[in-house]
């Protein structure tokens, strides 16, 4: 007997007919589901091609994100790799049978066929192992973050059946008299093993039924790509990504005032107000719960879980989605979010759960005026969230002894002090350290005297009107002066200037102070003289790390200091201060204390960070743990300044 693929071997005609009927049904059901869901999301077909671009690379990055977790990642990769190989194999078989053989050609012959058999058996094995791992996890480990519904296990059992029945069929084929004594059948090493167990069976009687059941399993599995959580797979390729950096404005203040029309919706007033991609995202989520594990609010027993937010809004969409979406989320939930973005950088399919919270805030604040802190009122009236007079800032800055920006005179660096730097006693010390550092390095810099809030707080808390008013005012301010770079001390100002302002035509060369220090160190302008014998743990401000990928620069600066030993916390978590967290009274377990405990595990002598909120949150946490004065929290620039002697 020739070494080649025998098509539809032992498959009677009724089986083939049944197969086509089942497949037709499955396909019809699937297409109907696709139609229903696409109209539910309100997919704009014209947007789809641009969404599909670059998806293969994204898929690889997705697997990489999954593999950050060993068990869950491996399990998924095995299933995906196996499935893809099996899919390609099936396509090849179909190609040969339905196309090539009609013109008298074959590809699955000889050694190529044996290699094909080996590869496909391996793929099937990986797939089955992956599915078994998933079943073990669902049935025995049951991680807290998973919902563990019956449906989850049922789908896995179906997949397992698909895999195993495939091997049983192969085993039966190889146990049939036509093949059982061929020496080359061992290439199909799994099927061969099965065949030895099935030898005595009257294979020809059994085979058609196993074949039919395999076909049935597939006929069920295909519509499940639409009707069950397996839809995360196709939707991953269709779902637009919503970057942390991009918070599209629901309206443009200038246009509204000019056009004198209020014909727009703001925030999560209803699900209809969301873009189709954000609606589709709700359905794409597979509820893996990785976002929940990464959420600092969830860890601190707050009512918030990003997975829950997506699940509930998704449920609302399925139930018709016309009702007020705001009611699906509790205010307490919405205000527990620190906008750290960890859920976004963790999601293996690149969804943005935080975005729904921001949209809910926009609805609560912009439409209803419900904001849990007076900080925004202060920004509106006093120009800073502290509610302190403008004159106080000016008088403090006078004492700084630095140059003020002058119109028509260019400076290398325009230093944006920010509200914390101007009003918070601790942050003022950071400003002093940085300004004296810059003065010593002969960097030509100036400060502004008349700046007010950057608006970041207003935007993250959901007041889009106030935010855009602030942007307009600051745009005028920046027009007055010329500078090579705007340098910020606060990652929140930094992110706002860098990522929020361009939407309103304000494009600046913005640098965080750690980037500036890193540049100065790299160019040799900073000569680190004194050794600093200390074990320092660096805490990443979320608005540098998660929003702007600035995490190697501050570490680089710290490493340049001789004697300094840089250590790391096991995992990144937010200090709890972002997204208004510093301004909203928290009850119960506090995120800053938990984060401090993470950092203490690294046994540091000092905590270094690069954000006034983080510093404030950790100093508070140190107080509540009775460690005040025992451990210092310093900005990277303060650490550097002390090493310059």
């Amino acid at each position, binding site marked *: 007997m020739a070494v080649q693929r025998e098509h539809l071997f032992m498959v009677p005609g009724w089986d083939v007919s049944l197969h086509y009927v089942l497949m037709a049904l499955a396909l019809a059901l699937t297409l109907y589901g696709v139609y229903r869901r696409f109209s539910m999301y309100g997919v704009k077909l014209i947007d789809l091609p641009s969404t599909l671009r670059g998806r293969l690379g994204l898929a690889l990055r997705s697997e990489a994100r999954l593999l950050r977790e060993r068990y869950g990642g491996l399990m998924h990769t095995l299933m995906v790799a196996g499935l893809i190989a099996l899919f390609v194999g099936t396509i090849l078989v179909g190609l040969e049978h339905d196309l090539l053989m009609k013109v008298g050609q074959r590809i699955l012959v000889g050694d190529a066929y044996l290699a094909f058999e080996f590869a496909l058996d391996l793929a099937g094995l990986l797939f089955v192992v992956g599915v078994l791992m998933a079943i073990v996890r669902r049935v025995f480990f049951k991680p807290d973050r998973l919902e563990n519904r019956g449906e989850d296990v049922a789908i896995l059992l179906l997949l397992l059946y698909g895999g195993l029945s495939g091997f049983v069929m192969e085993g039966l084929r190889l146990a049939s008299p036509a093949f059982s004594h061929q020496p080359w059948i061992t290439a199909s090493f799994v099927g061969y093993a099965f065949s030895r167990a099935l030898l005595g069976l009257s294979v020809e009687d059994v085979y058609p039924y196993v074949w039919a059941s395999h076909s049935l399993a597939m006929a069920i599995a295909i519509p499940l790509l639409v009707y069950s959580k397996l839809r995360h797979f196709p939707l991953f390729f269709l779902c637009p990504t919503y970057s942390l950096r991009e918070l599209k404005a629901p309206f443009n*203040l200038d246009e*509204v*005032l000019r056009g*004198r*029309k*209020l014909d727009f919706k*703001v925030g999560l007033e209803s699900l209809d107000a969301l873009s189709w991609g954000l609606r589709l995202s709700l359905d794409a989520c597979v509820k893996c719960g990785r976002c929940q594990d990464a959420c600092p609010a969830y860890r601190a027993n707050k009512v918030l879980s990003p997975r829950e937010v997506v699940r509930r809004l998704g449920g609302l969409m399925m139930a018709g989605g016309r009702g007020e979406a705001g009611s699906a989320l509790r205010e307490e939930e919405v205000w527990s979010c620190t906008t750290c973005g960890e859920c976004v950088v963790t999601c293996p399919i690149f969804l943005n759960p935080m975005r729904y919270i921001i949209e809910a805030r926009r609805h609560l*604040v*912009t*439409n*209803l*005026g*419900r*904001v849990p802190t*007076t900080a*925004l*009122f202060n920004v*509106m*009236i*006093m*120009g800073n969230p502290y509610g302190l*007079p*403008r*004159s*106080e800032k000016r008088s403090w800055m006078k004492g700084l002894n630095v140059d003020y920006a002058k119109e028509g005179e260019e400076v290398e660096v325009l230093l944006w002090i920010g509200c914390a730097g101007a009003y918070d006693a601790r942050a003022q010390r950071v400003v002093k350290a940085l300004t004296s550092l810059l003065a010593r390095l002969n960097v030509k810099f100036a400060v502004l005297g*008349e700046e007010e809030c950057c608006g970041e707080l207003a935007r993250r808390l959901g*007041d*889009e*009107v*106030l935010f855009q008013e602030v942007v307009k005012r600051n745009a005028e301010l920046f027009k007055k002066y010329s500078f090579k770079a705007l340098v910020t001390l606060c990652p929140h100002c930094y992110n706002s200037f860098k990522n929020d302002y361009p939407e309103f035509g304000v494009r600046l060369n913005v640098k965080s102070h750690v980037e500036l220090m890193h540049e100065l160190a790299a160019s040799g302008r900073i000569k680190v003289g004194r050794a600093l014998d200390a074990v320092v743990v660096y805490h990443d401000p979320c608005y540098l790390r998660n929003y702007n990928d600035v995490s190697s620069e501050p570490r680089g600066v710290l490493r340049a200091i001789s004697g300094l030993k840089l250590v790391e916390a096991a995992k990144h978590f937010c200090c709890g201060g972002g997204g208004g967290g510093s301004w909203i009274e928290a009850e119960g377990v506090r995120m800053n204390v938990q984060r401090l405990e993470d950092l203490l595990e690294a046994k540091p002598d000092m905590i270094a960070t690069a954000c006034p909120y983080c510093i404030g949150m950790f100093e508070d946490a140190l107080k509540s743990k009775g460690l005040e004065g025992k451990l210092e929290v310093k900005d990277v620039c303060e650490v550097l300044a002390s090493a310059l002697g």
Partner: protein
Amino acid sequence: MLNMVVGIKWVPDTADVRFDPVRGTLIREGVESIINPPDLNAIELALSLKEKYGGRVYVISMAPPAALKGLKMAVAMGADKAILLTDRRFAGADTLATSYALAAAIKKVGSYDIVIFGEETIDSATGHIGPEVGEMLGVPHVSYVKSVLNVDVASRVVELEREVEDGVEVLRSKLPVVISVGVGINSPRYPIPIRRLRAEVEADKYVETWSADTVGADSNRIGLQGSPTRVVKIIAAPMIERRREVHQHSREALSLLVRRLKEWEVL
């Protein structure tokens, strides 16, 4: 149903106002204006009464057009209508002339039940307006109101809490009544951002501008002409440096404290 009228003033933020000792005037340059802080509490009180008893809230300010910003903010907080009482002839008014003009405007509003003012303004701090307007309208007036306990709409009686030096008085008054409230009696709500836009975009719907003629004011009783008082001179009170020392609790610290208090002639 209750109709409330709230009088507000758009004032320079005095925390930022400095004094020019040479010229004897206030330096207002570059100083932002704000709603007089207790007036925010007055607006809040009116809005919460509206929520409880129904009715309408009118906000009124006698000022140059710059005060529109403050009136719109009041609309954003929830006021139904804002009235800008503006006329060159109002200029130079003291509290008497101001109260006269405000009373005329309130009469024009018509059926008012509770008129609310902030206790005093941060830029002149007289505390006159509430009582004077009450007198001019010929209705009861109560100052230093801490809260409105109850309004019996049917029998038109209001029960108020009034803060006095050694406690709280509970008063009952007939409606209409003029009250004034101090800063901090409640937490003013956040002006609803979308309503701020609405007040801007659909200003005609929310804001009316009235002149002396609109309210039928006697031109001898308004502005400089109607003001018997004059500002002769402004003197800056010398700043006294406040010092603070922090010591650990100890016998030495206590005796130091006693010594200091004696030095400062407190003891």
